[in-house]
């Protein structure tokens, strides 16, 4: 009897793990396959390049949000940060590079400070990052009040790089997913990170400094936010203080699509990157279906709901009497 129960539990756990990547995989196929069927001509080097181009900044912002969400925090300022970084890249780096670089390091320092303060004062990240969002937007407007600027050649060049055989965006996203997977599941930092989301007390009592960990995690959020801003500036070749405002919510949605949870602890590197790709490709699919761009954001909403609905029905064990 005992043995049977144990077996059942094991099989459940295994199923759970497979599903972590299965759902994001299914959701991207739902979007991607129709694109290929509708427009077979995109199946070439340039076509894939264009399809997945914008997935790069979205994926990087999603990874930033993922770091926060894995330890059950959230960053509601990430979109504002990404916008600010496009302004720094397009406006400060060409004219006053030293100030620009200092500012970028400053951003990471501020993020680490936010992480420390959240821990020391036991505050909610949701509120503190709302405050930060105003500060990032203020700085962005100060640097570049209107869209414009002149993004340096090395950033634009990097985003338009022509890699052999596999287009750069796919190459990049693949490497990103692998590196992230190694960081999350093969390094001690990753184990601590996931542990903090799962059981903070356990990690604390095993002698790790919560302060340092929290600072490190928020440093990563800032770093990936900056990378996302660079990628976006490289693709759009413009600095715009409002360009990425909706990234905050898109990133949260992508993390959840990718199998992450608000409770923290659960995460999948491949899932997160796939989630970001799904969110990016929805718009393309609708264009190919000749549906007005007005419906794009609504369709993103419906896809998120559909995927999560299926997911919750699969996970649901027994009757839920209240939420």
């Amino acid at each position, binding site marked *: 009897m005992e043995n049977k129960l144990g077996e059942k539990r094991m099989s459940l756990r295994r199923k759970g793990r497979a599903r972590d990547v299965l759902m994001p995989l299914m959701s991207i196929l739902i979007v991607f396959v129709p694109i290929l069927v509708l427009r077979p001509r995109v199946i070439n080097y340039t076509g894939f390049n264009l399809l997945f181009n914008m997935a790069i900044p979205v994926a990087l912002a999603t990874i930033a949000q993922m770091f926060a969400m894995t330890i059950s925090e*959230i960053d*509601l300022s990430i979109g504002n940060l990404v916008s600010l970084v496009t302004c720094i890249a397009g406006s400060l780096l060409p004219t006053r590079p030293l100030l620009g670089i200092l500012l970028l390091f400053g951003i990471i320092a501020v993020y680490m400070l936010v992480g420390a*303060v959240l821990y020391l*004062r*036991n*505050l*909610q990240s*949701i*509120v*503190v990052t*709302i*405050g*930060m*969002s*105003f*500060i*990032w*937007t*203020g*700085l*962005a*407007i*100060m640097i570049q*009040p209107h869209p414009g600027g002149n993004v340096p050649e090395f950033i634009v060049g990097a985003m338009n790089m022509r890699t052999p055989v596999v287009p750069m965006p796919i190459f990049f996203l693949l490497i990103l997913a692998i590196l992230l997977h190694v960081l999350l599941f093969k390094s001690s930092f990753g184990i601590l990170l996931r542990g903090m989301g799962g059981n*903070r007390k356990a990690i604390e009592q095993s002698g790790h400094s919560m302060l340092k960990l929290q600072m490190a995690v928020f440093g990563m959020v800032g770093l990936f936010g900056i990378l996302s801003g660079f990628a976006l500036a490289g693709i759009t070749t413009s600095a715009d203080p409002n360009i990425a405002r909706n990234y905050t*919510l898109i990133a*949260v*949605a992508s993390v*959840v699509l990718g199998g992450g*949870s*608000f409770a923290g602890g659960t995460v999948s590197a491949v899932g997160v990157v796939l989630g970001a790709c799904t969110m990016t490709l929805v718009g393309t699919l609708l264009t190919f279906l000749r549906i*007005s761009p*007005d*419906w*794009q*954001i*609504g*369709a*993103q*909403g*419906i896809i*998120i*709901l559909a995927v*999560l*609905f299926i997911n*919750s*029905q699969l*996970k*649901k064990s027994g009757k*839920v*009497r*209240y*939420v």
Partner: protein
Amino acid sequence: MSDTAVNNRTPVELLKNFISIRWAWSYTGVVIVFLMVAMVSRNPFQTLAASISFASFFVLVGLGQMLVITNGPGNIDLSIPYTIALAGSFAMKVMGGMDSGIFMGILAGIAAGSAVGAFNFMLIRFALIPPMIATLASSFIVRTLAIVFFRGMLIKPPRGLEVFVNVKILQVPILFLLVILLSVAVHLLLSRTAYGRGIQAIGQNTKAAWLAGVKVNSRKLITYTLSGVFAGITGVLLAAFSGGATLGMGDEYLLNSIAVVVLGGTSIAGGDSNVQGIIGASVLLYLIVNFLNIIGFGASLRYIVTGVVIVGIILAAGHGKGRK
């Protein structure tokens, strides 16, 4: 006995006691910023009146957001901005610029808001989607509805409503009086009714509340619907106040609705709410912006100062989140 205890307190103790009142921070801020305004402005009361008019809308959305947040960790309504836009556009369309349509228009706005709120709850309850994502996804859909139905055009309000929302009684904007009335109503709802007590219990411990017989599902349905209703009312009044409904009219309310609730002393962890603080926090945020305007600060510095004030008050008031 308690009287002497109060009388014997040292100033330091009294100050500590004052600081422990969470909503005291926002009102202290209002007084300080008002004194600063008085130093630079010839007519500080006019500045205050202008701030109060705009702050009324923050209070309105804040009341709904507060009820949602009261339900405990994870409960939040991100659909407020586009609910405002949808309800405002819908109401203006129904009114059609005619004074005779005002009543039906207001009803239409409230109906649109409550429909979005109830839909949010359905997603949370039956699709088991976390509130943050459920309200976010539904706001995407609501935004699309607003675009498709109203083509993002400016729809003008009827003259009668436009005049009404700009009325001042003894220098005090009528909008603010209306909002005070609603705030009192929400305060009574929270402290005196089974519904209010219920959601506070849910916020403190959902399982315990459920075991104690609190109707968790119906309480949450009412909460999310009310949040939609408040957003709907905001949409109607804001459209009338600013000369018409536009698609982006609710954008600034996404983060501000949460900010005023928390600055007002409501615990973001839920179960402990504060209505009077929302009013103080809303007036404070607008008064600061107006003060910076008067002394000639640009948009960028206004944003930065607002952010610093939000972070500063959170740090100073520093109520913990009480992790379980």
